[in-house]
């Protein structure tokens, strides 16, 4: 059955306006990135791709991009490694666990990132004298953890645990049951958690601001640093690349799983 409802003109107008507000910055950045001027400007004057090639000539962009990707992958991976079992336990033993326990895993989102970053720097980097890279990874793992627990948890909430018992009764040991029966049925949640956490990590500024140090920096921090010295369209072109990365990840998800599960 197809529902045909006439949309109110005002609704169309408001929806269009919101859409425009959402999409406009993307076009402004895209425009600014190709402007043939030594400073950020919009609308673009002229057309050039030299700012894109400029990114690759600046060593710092390359090294920080690599660090950003490493940290995002590793941090998200670690967060899932902790978060999936945590989410599993929270759902499996729901009745036996105190109700506040699941909220503990959302704390990293509730605590302002600035505070989290500062406290990690003070206590881990300075206090424990751990390498900058390790602390940065730790910070991003914390950043990703709430997504891992919450999104995987949402998948597990609709998982019927009698399926697990069926597998065990058929002779499958518990750990193997988790890997071969539970995990395949929550894979959409795991992928969703990975993507959300990964994107959050790769775009993060606040925590990284405190946890980067000599020789170790992330791309967003490098963008900031670059902007303080040069107000040129290089920043816009890096942003475009970051956007493309995000869109690319989303496109892969859309193609393989469908985006709808992100909103489920």
């Amino acid at each position, binding site marked *: 059955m197809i529902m045909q409802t006439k949309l109110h003109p005002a609704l169309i107008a408001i929806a269009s306006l919101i859409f425009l507000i959402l999409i406009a910055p993307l076009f402004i950045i895209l425009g600014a990135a190709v402007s043939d001027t030594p400073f950020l400007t919009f609308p673009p004057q002229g057309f050039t791709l030299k700012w894109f090639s400029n990114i690759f000539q600046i060593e710092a962009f390359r090294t920080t991009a690599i660090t950003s990707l490493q940290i995002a992958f590793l941090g998200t991976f670690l967060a899932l490694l902790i978060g999936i079992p945590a989410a599993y336990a929270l759902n499996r033993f729901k009745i036996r666990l105190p109700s506040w326990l699941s909220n503990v895993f959302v704390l990293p989102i509730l605590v302002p990132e600035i505070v989290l970053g500062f406290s990690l720097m003070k206590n881990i980097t300075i206090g424990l004298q751990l390498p900058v890279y390790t602390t940065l990874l730790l910070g991003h793992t914390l950043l990703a953890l709430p997504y891992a627990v919450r999104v995987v948890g949402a998948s597990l909430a609709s998982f019927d645990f009698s399926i697990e018992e069926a597998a065990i009764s*058929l002779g499958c040991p*518990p750990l193997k049951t988790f890997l071969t029966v539970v995990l395949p049925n929550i894979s959409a949640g795991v992928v969703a958690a990975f993507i959300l956490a990964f994107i959050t990590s790769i775009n993060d500024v606040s925590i990284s601001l405190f946890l980067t140090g000599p020789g170790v920096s992330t791309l967003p921090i490098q963008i900031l640093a670059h902007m303080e010295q040069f107000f040129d369209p290089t920043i816009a072109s890096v942003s475009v690349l970051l956007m493309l990365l995000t869109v690319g990840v989303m496109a892969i998800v859309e193609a393989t799983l469908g985006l709808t599960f992100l909103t489920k």
Partner: protein
Amino acid sequence: MTVSLTLENVSAHYGSTQVLKDLTLAVAAGELVSLLGASGCGKTTTLRLVAGFLQPSSGTIRLGDRDLTRLPAHQRDIGLVFQNYALFPHLSVRDNVSFGLKQRGADAAERKKRADRMLERVGLSSFADRMPAALSGGQKQRVALARALVIEPPLLMFDEPLSNLDAKLRVDMRVEIRRLQRANGTTSLYVTHDQEEAFSISDRVAIMNAGRIMQLDTPEVLYQRPANSFVARFVGFENLIDMTVVERLGETVTARTKDGALLQLSQERLGAIPDRFILAARPDGLAVARDGNGIPVTLGIRTYLGRAYQYQCAAEGQSYLGNGSLSEPLDTGDRAVLSPVPEQCCILPADV
């Protein structure tokens, strides 16, 4: 290799609440025993203890000569059929059925052969490559049955396997379950809250109440000779009349109801009668007549049952349900007497 299942003095707790109280139960080799009782009486808990998903707080569970009590669930070798089917959503019907074989190290060819043969036995050969989501409820339960049977377990357990199916299918499926269980001679424990289902499918039925087995017997015995007032009420003895013996003359006993009516009962026909007892009668075990010996009552609403009229009867402080003949209809408000039909009545020990 049919074996017996025994539970000895098994107790179970959830936290500090005890849900099974010293449960003792023996299922003979090849027998199908049902646990029957209202929701919350501990049927599922019993099954989960045997399956190994719960640990008893005391007691032992044995399957043949194996002590299961401390054995991990995955080593117990028990076929389970769940109410909600619990099929693996990510596996095809065939892979669902061969899952247990895979755990037992059967090779791919062997698995396929045995799974397909099993699917044929439950009439699902043409569905082997489907995913569970594309099956109807009845088909899903057949797959679940095939999955449990294919590992040829020494014990099969069912937890309300038919509750999610519609009435017609329920009857078909229970015949099917019984047929397969008989053919394999697999010892089985079957949980249901449906009396008709339990009585039709089982060799013996355990009627449970609040974590205890009230009586374990064949359906015939349960239906005709309940051992206590709980079971009697459960199988439809709607009249449970507290009585006290006032006189014994040979085999004839005179007993009094709480409100003073006297009944003469024959021990030859009813069996030994203790001094205090409960006379249990279904409506057709209390004959309603205009006069004669019996409990005097005032008639209430009359219902037509086809083979008889049924009357709600009120005596002082007590109400009864009795049947009267079609040839002599009585009216609401009439005075009448109720006399027990010995063949339809039971003598039960008085409740303490």
